[in-house]
C-alpha cells in the first residue's frame, strides 16, 4: 500500500509543482499591477467555492473541460496527440442543436438522439486524422489542427442558411431535448447553469478508467501508446486501434458540447467552444491522462475560469489565460526535468 501511495505521489508532485509555480508567477503579475496577490487569489477561491452559486458556476465551467480533457487523455494513452477536440466539440454541438431543434422524433427519444448526434459528429471528425495516420502515416497534430479550421469554415458556411435571421445561433431546441439543470436536484446550486452533462462526464470518466485499465481493448491501446513496436509484435492491429482511439476521443469531445448547447443556451452559437477543446490539452497534461487526475484538473481549471471573471474588478480577467498557459509550459518542463532526474538516480 505504501508503494502505491508513493507511486501516486510521484505522479502528482510535478503537476502540483507546476501549478504552484504558475500561481507564484501570476502573483508577481498581480503585484506588478499594484494589487495584493493574496487578496486577489483569496477572492477567487471564495467566489469559486464559497457559495452554492459559485460552486455551480465552477462546475459549469469545468464540464466541457472534463470532456475535452478525457478526449485528449484517451488519445495520449494511445500515443496520439488530439489537438482537434475543439473542432470535434464544435461540430458535435452543431449536430446536437440541429437534431434537438428539427428531428421529427417522439419526445422521449429526442435527448438521446441529440447526444448520439453530438458523439457521432465528433467521432466522424476525429476518425479522419486517425485514418490518415493509420493508412498513410500522416502526423495527426497538423491534421487535427487543419480539421479544426475546416470545421469552423463549414459551420460558418452552413450557418448562413441555418442561423436565425440577424444572429449567429441556430433555432432553439425542443424542450424534450434539454439537459436538466443540476439545481433541480441540488437546490443549493440555485441560479447556476451547471447541468446534468456534468454527471454524464463523470460517468464517462469512470467508464474510461474501466475501459483503459480493465478491458483487453484498453490494454492494447495503452501498449500501443507505450511501445508501438511491442504492440505490433504482440498482434495488436495497430492501425485499427489508432482509428478506434481517435474516433472514441472525437465522440467524447463531441459529447462535451451537451453542457452548453443542450443544458445552458439550448441552441448552437458561433464560437461557443471558446477554446475549451484546446484547454483539454492542459487538463489532460495536468491530470496525467488518468480519468481521476483529469477530473480534478478540470475542476481546477473550471474554478480558474469562473474565478477570473469575478476578480476582473482588480486585475484583467485575462490573467487566468496567462496562468493556464504557464501551467502548461511549467508542467511539461517539470515532467521532462523530473524524468531526467529519475533516470539519473536509476543509472
Amino acid at each position, binding site marked *: 500500500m505504501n508503494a502505491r501511495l508513493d507511486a501516486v505521489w510521484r505522479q502528482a508532485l510535478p503537476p502540483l509543482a507546476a501549478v504552484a509555480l504558475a500561481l507564484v508567477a501570476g502573483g508577481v*503579475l498581480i503585484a506588478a*499591477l499594484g494589487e495584493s496577490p493574496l487578496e486577489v487569489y483569496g477572492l477567487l477561491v471564495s467566489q469559486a467555492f464559497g457559495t452554492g452559486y459559485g460552486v455551480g458556476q465552477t462546475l459549469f465551467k469545468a464540464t466541457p473541460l472534463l470532456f475535452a480533457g478525457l478526449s485528449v487523455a484517451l488519445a495520449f494513452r494511445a500515443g496520439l*496527440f488530439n*489537438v482537434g477536440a475543439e473542432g470535434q466539440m464544435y461540430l458535435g454541438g452543431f449536430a446536437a442543436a440541429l437534431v434537438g431543434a428539427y428531428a421529427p422524433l417522439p419526445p422521449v427519444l429526442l435527448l438521446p438522439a441529440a447526444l448520439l448526434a453530438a458523439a457521432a459528429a465528433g467521432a466522424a471528425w476525429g476518425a479522419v486524422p486517425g485514418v*490518415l495516420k493509420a*493508412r*498513410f*502515416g*500522416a*502526423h495527426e*497534430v*497538423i*491534421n487535427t*489542427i*487543419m*480539421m479544426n*479550421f*475546416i470545421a469552423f*469554415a*463549414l459551420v*460558418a*458556411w452552413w450557418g448562413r442558411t441555418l442561423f436565425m435571421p440577424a444572429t449567429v445561433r441556430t433555432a432553439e431546441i425542443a424542450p424534450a431535448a434539454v439537459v436538466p439543470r443540476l439545481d433541480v436536484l441540488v437546490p443549493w446550486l440555485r441560479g447556476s447553469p451547471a447541468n446534468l452533462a456534468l454527471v454524464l462526464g463523470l460517468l464517462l470518466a469512470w467508464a474510461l478508467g474501466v475501459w483503459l485499465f480493465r478491458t483487453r481493448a484498453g490494454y492494447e491501446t495503452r501498449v500501443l501508446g507505450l511501445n508501438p513496436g511491442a504492440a505490433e509484435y504482440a498482434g495488436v492491429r495497430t492501425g485499427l486501434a489508432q482509428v478506434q482511439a481517435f474516433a472514441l476521443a472525437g465522440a467524447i469531445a463531441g459529447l462535451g458540447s451537451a453542457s452548453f448547447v443542450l443544458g445552458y443556451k439550448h441552441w448552437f452559437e458561433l464560437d461557443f467552444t471558446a*477554446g475549451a477543446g*484546446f484547454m483539454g*490539452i*492542459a487538463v489532460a*497534461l495536468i491530470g496525467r491522462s488518468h480519468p481521476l487526475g483529469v477530473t480534478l484538473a478540470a475542476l481546477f481549471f473550471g474554478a480558474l475560469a469562473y474565478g477570473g471573471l469575478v476578480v476582473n474588478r482588480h486585475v*484583467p480577467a*485575462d*490573467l*487566468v*489565460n*496567462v496562468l*493556464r*498557459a*504557464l501551467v*502548461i*509550459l511549467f508542467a*511539461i*518542463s517539470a*515532467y*521532462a*526535468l523530473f524524468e*531526467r532526474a529519475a*533516470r539519473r538516480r536509476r*543509472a
Partner: protein
Amino acid sequence: MNALDALLFAAATLRITVPYALAAMGAALGERGGVVCLALEGIMLHGALAYVLGAWFLGDPWLGLLCAIAAGAATAALHALVTVTFRADAITSGIGINLLAAGLTRFVLVTVFHSSSNSPRVVGLPDLPLGPVAQVPGLGPLLATPLVPIVLVLVPATTWLLFRTPFGLRLRATGERPEASAALGLSVAGLRWSGVLLCGVLAGLAGAWLASEQHSFTDGMTGGRGYIAIAAMIVGKWHPAGAAAACLLFGATEAAQIALQGSGFPSALLQALPYAVTMLALAGFIGRATPPRALGTPYDPERG
C-alpha cells in the same frame, strides 16, 4: 479580367502572402534544426503587439520593428528553453506559447490601453523612395512597403543559408541525426537554439507587418496565420522555395475569396482549401512530404 485587374489581384495576393512567407521561412529554419515550430502563431501575436507598443511609446515605426524582432526572439527563446534545454515536447510547448500569447497580449492591451479589443492608431512603416516604380498601379505601392522587398530577398537567402553554408549543413544535420552532429563536436543545443531564434525574429517581423498594415493591434489579430504558415512550410516540404510557393498559393486563394465575396460563390470552400491541401500533402498525395528525421525528438546526450 483585364490586365489591370490581374495586376491588382497579384498585388493583393502578394500583400496577403508577406506575413505567411516571413513566418514560413522562420519555421523552415527552426524545423530543419529539429524543433517543431507550432509556436509561430504566438510569436507573431507578440511581434504585432510589440510593434504597436514601440511605435506608440517611442514614436518611431522602425523602433517598433526592432521591438517586434526582440519580442519574437524572446518568445522563441522561451520555446527553445522549454524544448531544447529542458527537452520537453515541442508540440505542447508551441500550443502553450500560443495560449500564453493570446492571454498576455489582451492582458497588456487592457492594462496599457484600457481596451480588451484594440490599441489606438499608430504609425505604419514608411514607404521606400522608389521613384517611378512606385507609380505602377497596384504593384508599385506594394514594392515600396519595406517588408515586401525583404521577403523577396529572404526566400533565396534562406535557401542559400540552409543549403550552401556550413551553418545550414550543420543545422540540417542536427535535425536529421543529432547524435552524428554531436559526434562531430557540434553543439546540438546551440544549433537548435539558433534555428528557433531565427524563427522568432522572422515570425516577429511577420507580426510587425500585420500591425503596421493595420496601424493598430487588435485582439487575436493573427487569426490562425501562424498555423497557415506552418501548413505552407509542410506543403513546401520543409524547403524555403517550396514553402514560398505554397504561401503564394494560399495567399491567392485568400485574395480570390475576398474578390469573390458577395458573388454567390461558396467562399467557405476556398477558405477551407489551404487546410485540405495541407492534409493531402501530409498524406502523400502531393509527393512525399518527409519531415526532418529527428523533428520533434529532444536530443538527450545521455541516451544518444
